């Protein structure tokens, strides 16, 4: 505590014995955890000071998670304040805040700053037990404005302009308690009978008001269950304190019997009040929930609407304009159907760069350019390699031919197994005789048959008057075995490296692909 260097914020660590207080404190102070723990244990024997200190830190210091959450929460949503306290005079605190533009009341703005103050503040309070100066020395880049800002209590005490008002207040209270205790030691008569109940009432009220702050902030920014639970505990504790305090004060420290009776009566009254207020509370809660759900639905709807507008509506407009051309209409409808289907069913996490995906996109391309439906059925899948790219190009040529000459629907079937990849492209056109194709027409002979042969595959064209089917087969060369998605064995790996060595033409790219394949597995 001698240097003012940047310290890690005081948070309860997840590396914990009980509640992570000691390790958090050690982190913050830069001391070894062992010493901190030992000190804490020793302090426990000093009249239980250690226990009190520990409990204090436990309650006041947030865990690392909470702290992060609070900090993240700081840029509050602009639609935040649905409930607000009567607006307070903005005062000096407002001037320091840049994000005043949203919302009218200064009350919500008061929370833009203090999230950090709340998190780090807990820490400084703890340090504050050794002396308030330490708390102030805490180097938190924080706009002026204390936790009590949005809080009526704060304005009563005019603490609003003082940084770390909460900490100072608590420190002052503690000092007061200490002073009273010391005074009693010296025999001064302190009217404890009045002071304790009064303190209880004040404390209870403070806790309850803090609760209001918290729920408002949490409720409107993001409502987590943990906050709720904490809130309820705080409310109950505050209520209990106030009720007990009032009782003791009123009954003038009378007999216990009386106190119990009064307690019973007051609980009954409270119950009655709760009974009356509950419907309002519930209604308010429900409204809030409904509104939230509505907002989520609205967002979703807006996204879907935007998508439909960009796709389906545009296509429908185009279809109306091209209503005369049946082919255009069919093409547009097919393309739109494909797009919508992909949007509805596709899984963004799905791997891309696989053969089936490639074939489908090629089919879509052919469909778009020629207007024939291309139905693709795939069984199995495999990684794309250079050789598969050749297969895809040959298949593309075959699909184009089928669409151009065959007319009608083109059926494409891809079957990929461990040893072999086959693609069948079938149309129902009039067919053709391969030998009758002039030599200068390179489509079939070069782009399909020649290409497949060069890459170690085969292409068979079967044409009759009922239609034409192009069968492309590409055996998985040993070098590809490692890339097959399903088949991976050590043997095939060993063989693949042999084959790689023997293959000189494109050994470098092949090798890198194989490595990729290995990595994937």
């Amino acid at each position: 505590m001698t240097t003012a260097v940047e310290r890690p914020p005081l948070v309860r660590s997840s590396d914990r014995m009980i509640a992570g207080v000691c390790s958090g404190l050690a982190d913050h102070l830069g001391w070894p955890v062992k010493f901190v723990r030992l000190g804490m244990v020793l302090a426990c024997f000093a009249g239980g000071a250690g226990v009190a200190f520990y409990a204090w830190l436990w309650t006041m210091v947030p865990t690392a998670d909470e702290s992060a959450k609070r900090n993240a929460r700081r840029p509050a949503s602009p639609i935040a304040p649905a409930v607000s306290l009567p607006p307070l005079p903005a005062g000096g605190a407002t001037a320091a805040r840049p994000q005043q533009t949203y919302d009218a009341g200064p009350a919500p703005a008061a929370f833009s700053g203090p999230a950090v103050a709340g998190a780090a503040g807990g820490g400084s309070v703890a340090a504050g037990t050794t002396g308030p100066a330490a708390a102030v020395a805490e180097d938190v880049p924080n706009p002026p404005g204390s936790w009590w800002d949005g809080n009526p209590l704060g304005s009563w005490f005019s603490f609003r302009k003082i940084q770390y008002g909460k900490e100072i207040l608590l420190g002052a209270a503690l000092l007061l308690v200490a002073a009273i205790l010391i005074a009693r030691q010296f025999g001064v008569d302190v009217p404890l009978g009045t002071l304790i109940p009064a303190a209880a009432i004040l404390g209870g009220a403070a806790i309850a008001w803090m609760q209001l702050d918290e729920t408002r902030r949490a409720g409107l920014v993001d409502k987590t269950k943990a906050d709720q639970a904490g809130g309820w505990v705080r409310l109950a504790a505050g209520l209990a304190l106030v009720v007990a305090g009032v009782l003791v004060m009123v009954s003038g420290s009378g007999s216990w019997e009386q106190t119990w009776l009064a307690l019973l009566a007051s609980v009954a009254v409270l119950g009655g009040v709760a009974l009356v207020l509950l419907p309002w509370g519930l209604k308010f809660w429900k409204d809030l929930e409904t509104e939230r759900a509505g907002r989520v639905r609205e967002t979703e709807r807006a996204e879907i609407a935007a998508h439909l507008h960009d796709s389906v509506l545009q296509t429908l407009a185009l279809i109306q304009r091209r209503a005369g051309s049946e082919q255009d209409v069919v093409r547009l409808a097919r393309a739109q159907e494909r797009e919508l289907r992909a949007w509805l069913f596709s899984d963004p996490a799905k791997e891309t760069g696989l053969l089936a995906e490639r074939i489908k996109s090629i089919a879509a391309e052919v469909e778009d350019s020629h207007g024939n439906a291309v139905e693709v059925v795939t069984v199995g899948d495999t990684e794309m390699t250079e050789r598969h790219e050749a297969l895809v190009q040959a298949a593309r040529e075959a699909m184009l031919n089928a669409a151009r000459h065959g007319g009608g629907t083109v059926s494409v079937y891809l079957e990929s197994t461990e040893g072999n990849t086959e693609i069948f492209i079938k149309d129902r056109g009039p067919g053709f005789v391969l030998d009758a194709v002039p030599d200068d027409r390179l489509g079939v002979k070069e782009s399909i048959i020649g290409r497949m042969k060069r890459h170690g595959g085969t292409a068979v064209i079967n044409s009759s008057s009922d239609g034409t089917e192009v069968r492309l087969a590409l055996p998985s060369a040993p070098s590809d075995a490692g890339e097959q998605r399903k088949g991976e064995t050590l043997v095939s790996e060993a063989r693949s490296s042999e084959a790689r060595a023997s293959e000189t033409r494109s050994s470098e790219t092949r090798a890198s692909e194989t490595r990729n394949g290995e990595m994937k597995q």
Partner: protein
Amino acid sequence: MTINPDGGPGRSVRVVIVDDHTIFRSGLKADLDARMDVVGEAGTVEQAIAVIAETRPEVVLLDVHLPGGLGGGGREVIAGSSALLGTTSFLALSVSDAAEDVVSVIRAGARGYVTKTISGKEISDAVIRVADGDAVFSPRLAGFVLDAFGTAPADIADDELDKLSARELEVMRLIARGYSYKEVAKELFISIKTVETHVSAVLRKLQLSSRHELTKWAAERRLL
């Protein structure tokens, strides 16, 4: 019962169309040729079950996605009409190509599955085929079957329900490639009746196989 394929004087097939889109129903009705007699229509699960029970059609053209009921769509209609499964056949129709939808409706008892983009002639043929007790496989359904059962033929030791025989695989492959039953028969030098027998056997396996992978597989492949 065999129907005169030329739509001659033979008895026509009684058909019920179940689809929640009126436009699609009327379009389909117009598409079906003279061999069919549409005796009823329904737009929801409840209506469908009622109409089917009342009219007792030979074939129900059933959309996979239907409003009403418990949200089960076509599956629920088949389950609700299970008492009639002996006399009434269901042909599933869908815009959805999702494996989950297709496989679940087939496993519920449908005799076949076709996509809604199918032509009028094809759908009429499919209805006749289903009315004759055969199964109707679209290329996509054949693809699903191959994907789900694997492309390796069954060993003799295997549970016969979990694998396809070599011949069944051949037939499925050809159908996936876009071959009609007639073309399959020609290609494999067998009769159309034999092709139909194979396809029915595959359908039976698809419906009865207890392979847990089948359901898992379908769920995984939500997309197609």
